[in-house]
């Protein structure tokens, strides 16, 4: 079953939109799927005082994060009647306008795909030990705080 095929979550650098298209295409042979829900996190060029965010540099406590991704995955299959799910998260530098998080759920019915996707995103933001350092256009930096 799909549930067992666990891919690597962390990707070096930004997540390519073409990769997202390919991930979608791979589901065309799962003909019991009726609905996909996708969440993408994109790096914003926030202005903080005089400064503008040029990029975020992500680091993680990988061993712990990878265990958590497995737990989030198992819980998602337990809590929602989904057919498959995928999570990708960037490490390293991701420029403003580039994508750093890709959560993808698929189900027979739309509500299940949508609810699962949202629940997974919330858990990632809250529980997974990843840190983003905002790199400003002037090369100063500060640690990001999630809202």
């Amino acid at each position, binding site marked *: 079953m799909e549930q067992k095929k666990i891919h690597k979550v962390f990707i070096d650098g930004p997540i390519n939109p073409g990769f997202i298209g390919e991930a979608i295409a791979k589901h065309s042979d799962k003909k019991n799927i009726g609905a996909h829900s996708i969440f993408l*996190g994109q790096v914003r060029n926030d202005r903080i005082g005089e400064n503008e965010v040029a990029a975020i540099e*992500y*680091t*993680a*406590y990988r*061993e*712990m994060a990878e*265990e958590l991704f497995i737990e989030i995955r198992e819980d998602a299959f337990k809590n929602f009647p989904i057919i498959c799910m995928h999570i990708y*998260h960037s490490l390293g530098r991701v420029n403003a306008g580039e994508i*750093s*998080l890709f959560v993808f759920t698929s189900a027979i019915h739309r509500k299940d795909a949508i609810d699962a996707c949202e629940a997974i*995103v919330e858990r*990632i*933001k*809250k*529980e*997974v*030990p*990843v*840190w*983003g*350092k905002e790199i400003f256009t002037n090369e100063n930096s500060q*640690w*990001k*705080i*999630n809202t």
Partner: protein
Amino acid sequence: MGINVLLFGQVADITGKDILKIPVVKNTNELNQLLEKTYPALKSIKYSIAVNKKVIQENTALHNEDTVAILPPFSGG
């Protein structure tokens, strides 16, 4: 012999390192005291603690070879 302390994000900036080897202390409260004595700037930030990759909510006994991580607020995604 000892405990591995992993430091991340803002905490690693404060300590100037991303790993500390320290002698065994009894529990996480003792570890906290030790760290905040050595790096007083830690007192001014919020962080949580994971013992062997699990976030703990209360004082937890530590044993030789345990890995403790000092985790500033997450900002992934």
